[in-house]
């Protein structure tokens, strides 16, 4: 989970970086466009201004020409006619200039109109001049010619005003457009900048936050690894202590074994030997009641003997120094069957066994396991029915019990030992494997309550397990799982 977070954080940072780059490029482009349009509009202003000035100049030249002409007419001095003569050429030049600057059809039309009017004005001035040069001067002709000239001049003035108005209107148009753009663009840029700023601030926050988290987690990790190291050390200490304890316990167990095998058995054996002496020699002297008591003593002592033997066997199965060997389980079963052949005959019992595998086992323990299970079936058989023990073996398969500490990847042989005995209630299926746990009284069925505990121990010693299924009045089945 944490790894994924870190990964997405780095991915997230990349996205932020890309977005920032994009925003920067966009802002740059917009700014460039904005600057360009500003320059453009300045150009337009300049253009409009220039055109107006040139047109005004044109007009003023025309006026100069008119003034010169008038001066000539009044004084008849040709010097005064000079501006007039110059004006003609200057006006043509100015027109050529202006024509270059015209951009729209309307502007061009206006200019051509002006040109026409100015030409007309010059033509009229020529007419006036020629009238003025005529001798004798005809006042009426001069007057009418000059009036006509004034009329043309008025039209020119109107035309110039029109052109100025057009330029102004263009300028205003463009100004409006520019202003719109100029007002929109900064706003947009500002918004974009603000957005970018937000992104940056958020990224900064996010990065610093991630960094903090990382630091914190790092610290935690260091602390944890420290505490793990500590815990490990403590565990190791505890383990050593445990080991020591275990060794101690093993020693105690060994001395218990000795006590059980020797010190407990010795007085019992002596009691039993005395009993055998009494049975042989003194029993005839006893009363009937005495004989009964004596038989009971004998039974109790025998039971005690069985208990001690079984207990000894149990503690011997606890020993860890038993040697594993490759052994044929069929042979071990045969040995067990042979050991119990006498009892089996008594019960008219028979065993039908399937082929068993050859496994790496502690042979005497597996034989003990078979002996105990068959002995158990004999002990709890139905008196009126011949005992039948079936032994089956299933192919190795993984253990399918939940909550077991057994290797689920490993395959186990499942050996089933079932009988047609008295069975038991399924609710006791676990209890029967507990040391000294019995389901019957001594008077009904003799037993030590150790045999099946030994079976369990043996199965566990082999890395396997044993379970039981019982049906009262029908029989019991024991399942032994041994690693293949």
């Amino acid at each position: 989970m944490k790894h994924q977070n870190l990964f997405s954080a780095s991915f997230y940072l990349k996205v932020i970086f890309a977005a920032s780059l994009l925003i920067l490029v966009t802002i740059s482009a917009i700014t460039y466009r904005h600057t360009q349009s500003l320059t453009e509009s300045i150009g337009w202003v300049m253009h409009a201004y220039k055109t107006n000035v040139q047109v005004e100049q044109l007009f003023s030249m025309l006026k100069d020409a008119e003034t010169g002409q008038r001066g000539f007419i009044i004084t008849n001095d040709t010097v005064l006619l000079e501006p007039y003569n110059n004006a003609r050429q200057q006006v043509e030049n100015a027109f050529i200039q202006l024509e270059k600057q015209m951009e729209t059809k309307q502007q061009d039309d206006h200019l051509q109109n002006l040109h026409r009017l100015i030409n007309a004005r010059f033509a009229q001035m020529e007419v006036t001049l020629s009238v003025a040069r005529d001798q004798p001067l005809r006042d009426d002709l001069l007057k009418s010619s000059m009036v006509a000239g004034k009329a043309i001049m008025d039209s020119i003035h109107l035309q110039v005003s029109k052109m100025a108005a057009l330029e102004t209107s263009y300028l205003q148009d463009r100004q409006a457009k520019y202003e719109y753009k100029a007002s929109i663009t900064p706003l947009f840029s500002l918004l974009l900048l603000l957005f970018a700023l937000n992104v940056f601030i958020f990224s900064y926050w996010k990065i610093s936050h991630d960094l903090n988290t990382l630091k914190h987690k790092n610290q935690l990790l260091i602390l944890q690894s420290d505490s793990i190291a500590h815990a490990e050390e403590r565990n190791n200490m505890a383990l050593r202590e445990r080991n020591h304890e275990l060794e101690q316990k093993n020693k105690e167990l060994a001395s218990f074994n000795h006590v059980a095998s020797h010190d407990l058995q010795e007085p019992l054996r002596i009691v039993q030997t005395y009993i055998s002496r009494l049975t042989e020699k003194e029993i005839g002297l006893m009363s009937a009641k005495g004989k009964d008591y004596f038989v009971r003593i004998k039974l109790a002592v025998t039971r005690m003997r069985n208990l001690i033997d079984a207990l000894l066997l149990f503690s011997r199965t606890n020993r860890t120094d038993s040697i594993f060997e490759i052994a044929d389980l069929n042979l071990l079963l045969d040995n067990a069957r042979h050991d119990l052949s006498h009892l089996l005959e008594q019960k008219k019992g028979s065993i039908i066994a399937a082929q068993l595998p050859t496994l790496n086992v502690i042979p005497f323990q597996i034989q003990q396991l078979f002996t105990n299970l068959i002995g158990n079936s004999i002990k709890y058989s139905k008196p009126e029915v011949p005992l039948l023990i079936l032994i089956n073996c299933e192919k190795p398969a993984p253990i399918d019990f939940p909550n077991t500490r057994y290797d689920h990847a490993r395959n186990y042989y499942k050996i089933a030992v079932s009988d047609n005995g008295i069975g038991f209630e399924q609710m006791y299926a676990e209890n029967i494997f507990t040391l000294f746990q019995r389901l019957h009284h001594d008077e009904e069925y003799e037993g030590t309550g150790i045999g099946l505990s030994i079976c369990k121990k043996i199965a566990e010693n082999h890395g396997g397990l044993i379970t039981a299924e019982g049906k009262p009045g029908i029989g019991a089945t024991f399942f032994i799982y041994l690693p293949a």
Partner: protein
Amino acid sequence: MELEPIYVLLADDDDSDRMFFTDAFEEIKIKTVVQTVKDGVELTNYLSVPELIIPHVLFLDLNMPLKGGMECLVEIRQNNRFKDMAIAIYSTSASEEDIEDTFVKGANVYIKKPSDFNQLKKLLTKVISMNWQYHTSWLNKEIFLLNL
């Protein structure tokens, strides 16, 4: 012709066991001379008497106070004087270690004390009926532990 009696010696700390032992030999139809001592120290003293008739068979209990049977076994087997004396270990326990140990240290047979008097008689008869001199199979560990 009168048969030479078989000389039998028992070292055992338990007086009941000593009593069963002597009683058993009384009931056995073989002529025996049975002597008993009650621990290892007494055994050593008994065997150190120069004019001693060396027993044919020594029955040796392992668990005795003061001086145990194992110690006595080692001492006796180091003494050339008793090289012809058979030693039968006579013990309550029949642990693998004890059997192995006594076999290695030179005992001839291992008897687990029975809990029935008749069985005891049978076992003892079996032991003293053996021809110790020519019984080479004692060196076979498989039959070292004597069963009926």
